[in-house]
């Protein structure tokens, strides 16, 4: 009831701008379900992967923060390491058509092949729907979901918010930490951090 009152108040004030943010899931909440087209032509539904760990990686191939993790081979290493341990890894592209980082399925496939990237699939989110569900603000923002479908991590990929390739080696990787701790039956020690990177290029009308 309280939420509804707030909702109507906001609409009355013309503040629909903040709604995506207010409804977005937080760490500890059930991960919102979605259906998306993958660049490999398949349709992916998140809830089909209940029972497995799922990583969401917000991606923009022109962002230098993303570039740091791909040019250094860090992202590919993480994808290989964790998918080999049964983790489902979705790269998510939320750039709107006409915005920087927007890709067609074939452009994304070309990029994945060129970079030797190894996610389970790359999800195309040109409407920004998945991005808003998870309140993705930057690329590369990372989300980890546990087998029960609960968000156990959201935030930065690591603790070095720079574009310098040499910073990768000495960084503490929050995604690996969250997965390793959760798989060992431990509480995730750093469940939420400020995501760093380039802003997600949503459509102008979607905010």
């Amino acid at each position, binding site marked *: 009831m309280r939420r509804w009152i707030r909702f109507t108040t906001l609409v009355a004030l013309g*503040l629909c*701008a*903040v709604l995506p943010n207010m409804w977005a899931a937080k760490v500890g909440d059930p991960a919102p379900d979605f259906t998306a087209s993958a660049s490999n032509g398949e349709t992916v539904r998140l809830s089909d992967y209940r029972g497995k760990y799922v990583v969401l990686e917000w991606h923009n191939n022109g962002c230098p923060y993303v570039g740091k993790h791909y040019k250094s081979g860090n992202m590919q290493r993480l994808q290989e390491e964790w998918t080999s341990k049964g983790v489902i890894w979705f790269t998510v592209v939320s750039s709107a058509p006409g915005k*920087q980082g927007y890709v067609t399925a074939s452009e994304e496939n070309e990029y994945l092949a060129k970079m030797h990237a190894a996610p389970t699939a790359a999800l195309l989110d040109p409407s920004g729907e998945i991005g808003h569900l998870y309140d993705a*603000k*930057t690329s590369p923002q990372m989300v980890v979901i546990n087998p029960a479908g609960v968000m156990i991590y959201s935030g930065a990929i690591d603790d070095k918010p*720079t574009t310098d390739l040499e910073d990768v080696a000495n960084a503490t990787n929050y995604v690996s930490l969250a997965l390793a701790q959760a798989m060992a039956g431990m509480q995730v020690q750093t469940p*939420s951090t400020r995501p760093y990177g380039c802003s997600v290029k949503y459509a102008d009308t979607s905010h």
Partner: protein
Amino acid sequence: MPFCAAGVRASGAAIPHGTVELIAENQWIAAGYSVNLGLHFRLEKGWHIYWINPGDSGEPPRVEWHLPAGFTADAIEWPAPRRLGTSSIVDFGYEDAVTLIVPIHAEAYLPAQQTAQLAAEVKVLVCREMCLPGKAHLSLALPIKSQPPAPETKIEELFSATRKSLPRPAPKNWRFSIEGANESFVLTVSLGRKITQAVFFPLVESQIDNAAPQKLLAADSGFRLTLRKSDQLLKPIEDLKGVLVLSGDQAYLIDVPVGKLGATVTDNDIGIRSAKFMEEGQ
């Protein structure tokens, strides 16, 4: 460019969609004195760089100094930033042009030399829709003299204009309180006059929701500002530190304890009778 004095202004180095140059407020430096240097950024229309807390994306410029023996550099003095971005992602930064002032100190006894070669390695992220990292190596040869440093008049104007946009401590008679509600912090300020425009910039990341509109309740002798908490704020905080910009250009550095008992600034303190709600950040 109106500035041409040799020795105080190195030529600008290119960064993506702009330039950065190293400038000095004085014509020379002397042992035991301090001189303000400035990193003067100029950007093409639509491009921006970031404040010390960049907000939802980006990162602040970083500088590494290479100074001769006997010289030390202070931290950057950051002018008040602006809110940049859309309504779901908001960054804090600067468009067009900005000067980041860095005071440089010379020890009382300097090794015998005629000029001090002051060099800076600057790393900066420049963004519009896309972001491009830039690097610049800047250096400035400042003469060393025995008499106190004299200002370089034309450049001094640039520094004094920049100084006006630096946040200063709030007047002693202003009163502040912050109460933490479920989803927001409410900042109440009693300052003896009506304020119809106020924006808060948090110095610490992940305390308030950068993109949320800041709701202002303007009263006769003060105001209330509602700041939505960040989703990343998982533990209570002791104080909220940041820059409060009033009426668009008066910037104050504030550090207010959260929910301190007995320290609440009341409705009466701000003359609430004729209060009016307004929105910032839309």
